[in-house]
């Protein structure tokens, strides 16, 4: 709760906005800090929107931004904070299997076989995709190295001063094939927050605004929640295929318009599939496209995860990626891409529901 409150206050200070003006709250992944409690703690004058993106863990990060935007656009609320706070040490880590005596439902179909952590649940999806399209380990390595490369410019990053080399990646232990140690995100405590208001109100605030040009939430046909993910008909997918046409149509843009992308790395294999599904390259082009020089600021074809992302900046369940997408539009990134007008943030590949937001500068309106 303290971390969450500090993040919200910091976001308000950054925006130049009185925290008591907040009248809406949007989060995801069953955040422990509920809006009524936060509204009381902050002395908010009124609570008008109390929202949780249901299911999908980190796949709800962009969804929470989308829900907040929808609330403002429809007049349900005027000033919505999107937030996520984690205190894994106190409440249990995602990367540890549950120590229960019995399990039932979907968990009973996977845990007794030793499939009980996210790396183990999502590995078969990436494995099948790489098999189908002849994609090698080097593609995953380049994604991991892009995050670590960018973290070297970011003093806030946990991996600042701890660069990753090809040799280190290749020598690192397997976690769950095809994921090496460096293909997996870490876990840490922390909190993050973004403030959303109408475009008109944003003009009066301290920072140059980032505009929400489009957003989409969801998944395709019969995509099962994580423990039964093996049963999903389209297994080898990050589950953005049905969202992406809606996303680009809403924004009136296409993949060629995207200047910089933040692509949620729970595991690098999910980044591989989500970049394909967002139209940046065909599966057959993946090995060619996913080379470090193409993925890094300032001049790569598609710089990704420019703060270091989940792998190397910090694990704020992907909300740090939404914030970095905004920084890129403001020209405030530590690995700034020049002249950014369209900034993409992808949330939670391989889960359901997943989500994406396209942010734009004033020039894109």
């Amino acid at each position, binding site marked *: 709760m303290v971390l969450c409150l500090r993040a919200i206050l910091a976001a308000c200070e950054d925006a130049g906005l009185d925290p008591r003006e907040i009248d809406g709250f949007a989060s995801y992944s069953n955040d422990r800090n509920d809006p009524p409690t936060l509204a009381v703690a902050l002395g908010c004058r009124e609570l008008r929107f109390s929202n949780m993106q249901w299911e999908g863990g980190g796949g709800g990060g962009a969804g929470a931004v989308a829900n907040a935007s929808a609330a403002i656009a429809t007049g349900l609320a005027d000033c919505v904070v999107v937030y996520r706070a984690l205190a894994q040490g106190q409440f249990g880590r995602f990367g540890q299997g549950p120590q229960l005596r019995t399990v039932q439902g979907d968990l009973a179909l996977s845990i007794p076989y*030793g499939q009980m952590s996210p790396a183990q649940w999502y590995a078969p999806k990436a494995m099948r995709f790489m098999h189908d399209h002849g994609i090698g380990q080097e593609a995953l390595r380049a994604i991991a190295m892009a995050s670590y490369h960018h973290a070297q410019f970011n003093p806030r990053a946990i991996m600042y001063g701890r660069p990753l080399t090809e040799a280190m990646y290749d020598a690192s232990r397997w976690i769950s094939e095809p994921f090496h140690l460096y293909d997996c995100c870490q876990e840490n405590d922390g909190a993050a927050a973004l403030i959303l208001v109408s475009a008109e109100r944003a003009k009066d605030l301290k920072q140059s605004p980032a505009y929400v040009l489009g957003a989409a939430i969801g998944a395709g046909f019969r995509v099962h929640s994580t423990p039964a993910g093996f049963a999903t008909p389209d297994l080898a997918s990050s589950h953005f295929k049905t969202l992406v046409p809606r996303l680009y149509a809403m924004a009136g843009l296409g993949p060629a318009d995207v200047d910089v992308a933040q692509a949620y790395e729970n595991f690098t294999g999910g980044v591989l599939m989500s970049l394909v599904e967002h139209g940046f390259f065909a599966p057959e082009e993946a090995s060619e496209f996913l080379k470090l020089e193409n993925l890094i600021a300032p001049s790569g074809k598609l710089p990704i995860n420019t703060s270091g992302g989940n792998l190397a900046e910090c694990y704020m369940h992907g909300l740090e990626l939404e914030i970095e997408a905004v920084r890129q539009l403001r020209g405030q990134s530590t690995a700034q891409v020049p002249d950014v007008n369209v900034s993409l943030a992808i949330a939670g590949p391989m889960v359901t529901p997943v989500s994406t937001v396209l942010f734009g500068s004033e020039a894109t309106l």
Partner: protein
Amino acid sequence: MTSRAYLPAGLPIPVPERNGLSAPFWNGLREGVLKVQRNPRTGVHQWPAQWIAYDDHGFDLEWVAVEPRGRIHSFTRVWHPVHPALREACPYIIVVVELPHVGGVRMLGNLLGDPRQEVPIGAPVEAVFEHHPDAEPPYSLLQWRRLDSPAAGAR
């Protein structure tokens, strides 16, 4: 009827939900029979268990025995244990098995045999019922063995 377990004891024991939704599946495994749900009107198979047929929304799904074989759709070999019972058990192999003769439903299990074996995607496999009669409560797991090569190695 005791079969050697692929993974060590101490992992959570699978039990049917209190509402009994998937009890026919778990009871079937104990009898060495693989059962999935089928829509009696359309013949469409479903797995995992649901209350309703997704194709015509009937609530009268039936449980049918199916031939316990399939092909490897994907897999992972786990090297990092995330449960105390698995500390000495790595590596082990988890396979996603597709059952083409059952409408392509997918099931999970471990691939028996050498945990360091090559795992060819598409390879045919047959089910092995791994019984735990002395567990409390007793249960059986669905495991898989390659049909196209003799199971090598210790496990």
